């Protein structure tokens, strides 16, 4: 039994449980990866774990995938997901700052109202929003700005709620001393509160990015299956009337996972750093 850096003893249970959990959680993804390299017939007749001795390997799923429009739709997905992550975070961080550090009339009521909006399911808004963005209204349906607005609007209640709760836990003394030093709200936000909130912002950004990236419904309804389609919509369009071409989906799913994984791992490092860098030192 070793001793960890901080002097606590290593736990035997944790050392056994962790690898088991890791393996268990990785199995579905591994199965997906293996299946994406198998023929449809092989995948239908035998389990992916038997492929080592049963064979049925092929690259044709990836070939079929890459001969399509995956390149364009991957870029479209990035164009959708980055603004749809940055915009709600920006607005929500401003709002959360105001809700935490500025006194104004009706603050609590407004906050309750925004929190209450979290329970409005996005689905009930589809038809009116389609109408509003459609040719009878603004006429922006099918353009990127339509999905940006939607994701921003529906991402913000949760973001405001999360950020406000986090900011409320920050030491008020820091903000007060900034005020005494003559910092404006703008300076306080950018120099102090925003950097100190980076763990919450990073966590929310990860969730929001993954949600937007994996979203099918909003992308399909508001961007459509035309030239601006995202990678998830593109994957769905590869299926035939009775679901022919399902074997391509496994390959497609794997390809579409790559970018969220890059985002997740890069933000995760940021998230840890944000937590360890203290705010009130010296």
């Amino acid at each position, binding site marked *: 039994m070793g001793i960890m850096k901080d002097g606590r003893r290593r736990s035997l249970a944790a050392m056994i449980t962790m690898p088991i959990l890791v393996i268990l959680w990785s199995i579905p993804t591994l199965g997906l990866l293996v299946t994406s390299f198998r*023929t449809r*017939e092989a995948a*239908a*007749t035998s389990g992916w774990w038997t492929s080592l001795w049963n064979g049925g390997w092929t690259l044709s799923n990836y070939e079929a995938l890459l001969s399509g429009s995956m390149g364009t739709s991957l870029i479209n997905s990035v164009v959708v997901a980055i603004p749809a992550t940055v915009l709600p975070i920006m607005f929500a961080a401003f709002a959360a700052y105001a809700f935490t550090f500025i006194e104004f009339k009706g603050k609590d009521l407004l906050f309750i109202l925004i929190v209450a909006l979290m329970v409005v399911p996005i689905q009930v808004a*589809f*038809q009116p929003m*389609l*109408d509003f*963005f*459609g*040719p*009878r209204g603004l006429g922006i*349906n099918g353009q990127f700005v339509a999905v940006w607005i939607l994701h921003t609007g529906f991402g913000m209640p949760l973001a405001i709620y999360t950020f406000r709760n986090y900011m409320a836990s920050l030491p008020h003394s820091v903000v007060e001393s900034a005020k005494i030093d003559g910092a404006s709200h703008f300076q306080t936000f950018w120099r102090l509160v925003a950097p100190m909130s980076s763990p919450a912002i990073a966590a929310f950004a990860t969730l929001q990015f993954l949600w937007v990236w994996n979203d099918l419904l909003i992308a*399909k*309804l508001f961007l*459509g*299956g*035309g030239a601006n389609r995202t990678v998830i919509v593109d994957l*769905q*369009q*590869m*299926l*035939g*009337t*009775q*679901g*022919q*071409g399902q074997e*391509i989906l496994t390959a497609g799913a794997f390809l579409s996972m790559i970018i969220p994984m890059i985002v997740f791992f890069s933000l995760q490092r940021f998230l840890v750093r944000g937590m360890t860098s203290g705010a009130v030192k010296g």
Partner: protein
Amino acid sequence: MSRRALSRRTLMAGTAAAAATAGLTGCLQNPSPGGSGGGAVNRYTEGDVPGSGTVTILGAFGGQEQEAFEASLAAFQKESGITIQYTPDQDFTTTIQQRVGAGDAPDIALFPQPGGLFDLAENVTPIDVFLDYDQLNSTLIPGFLDSARLQGRVMGAPMRMACKSLIWYPKAAYDAAGYSTSPATMQELIGIGDQIKASGITPWSDTWGSDQATGWVGTDWIEEYMLRVHGPDVYDDWTSHRIPFNDERVVQVFDLVGELLKTEGNVLGGVDTMINTPFSEAPLPLFENPPRAMLVRQGNFVTGFFPEDVLANIDTEVGVYAMPTWEGGFEGQPILGGGDLAALFNLNDDSAKVMAFLTSDKFGAEWAKAGGWLSPHKTFPQENYADETTRSIAKIASEAAVFRYDGSDLMPNAVGGGTFWTNMVEWLQGTKTSQQACDAIEASWPA
């Protein structure tokens, strides 16, 4: 047809479809201008609304089918100078409702079943306004336009046909054993099944799995038997609810189908395997060596799920014949099928031209070569089909004495896309008897 898409949402109001089928028999006259039935139709004349040069189409199929569809339109686009933008959507039934509701309808939509089309009827231009109904009807397999008729007006015209009443078998093994490839009656076919069973092979492979839509394969069995045992008239009465769902004739058909499917050793793997295996995997046991089953009843689209090496030599590997008639039942050869109906939302010169082409027998040569597609026209040149197997299916469909649309697509969606499926599953599992299943479906029929 396309039950996967249909199953996702159950937005379709059933009453419209019920009203439609009720109106079907009452009003069969040709609604052409000056015709005796109904009022005169305002014909569209070219030049009334100039087109923009681009026509948008929304449909349910993507992937290889989309490629073949677009290939079939390439020459037409070059000739006419019209650009066609096709968008596939697996959730077609929902998407079309939402887009029409938002005033953002595509110019043309390809409906996988009439029910969804009837729901949007007030936004659709009936085809008699801009197409030559008589000419269309003379080349189509009879029955197609009737299935798209709502209150006397035909709302859409077919651009693809599905033929369901087909029995598939592995040619080499089947012929080697010397079984008949043209059984005259279902009883004879069941007799062949018994011979196969006696030789130590399970006769049938039949799988029902289809996620939320599990059960539709079973509804097809019931519909096939209804058509054969009781004939098309009773079939129409049944799908349009002029006779109740728990009519003794329907219950009898459930029992007959049960005799075939539930008898021990008739179907590969038994009831549990049937329900839990995706419908697309039914043909696979036929092509193992030696085959684990000999017979599959499924529509022409099932070829898309054959193993690749079988598909490459389909004419030598696979045999197909029409599901035969019922001895003592209806005498002619009935065929159960479906079709994608093209319907027009925005009428102008260009979209009318595209509709005329899509629904004519000139459309589809490239798609036919790519495979998996059947023209609904009797006059479609057979040499366009890629293989003998497809040609023989086209022949089966065009020679049918009676063609009937898939019944569950005609019934209100609450039944045809809901309780009919779920009760088929419970019936197969044995938790409900034929009578109980029929009673439950009858009770769920929207008033």
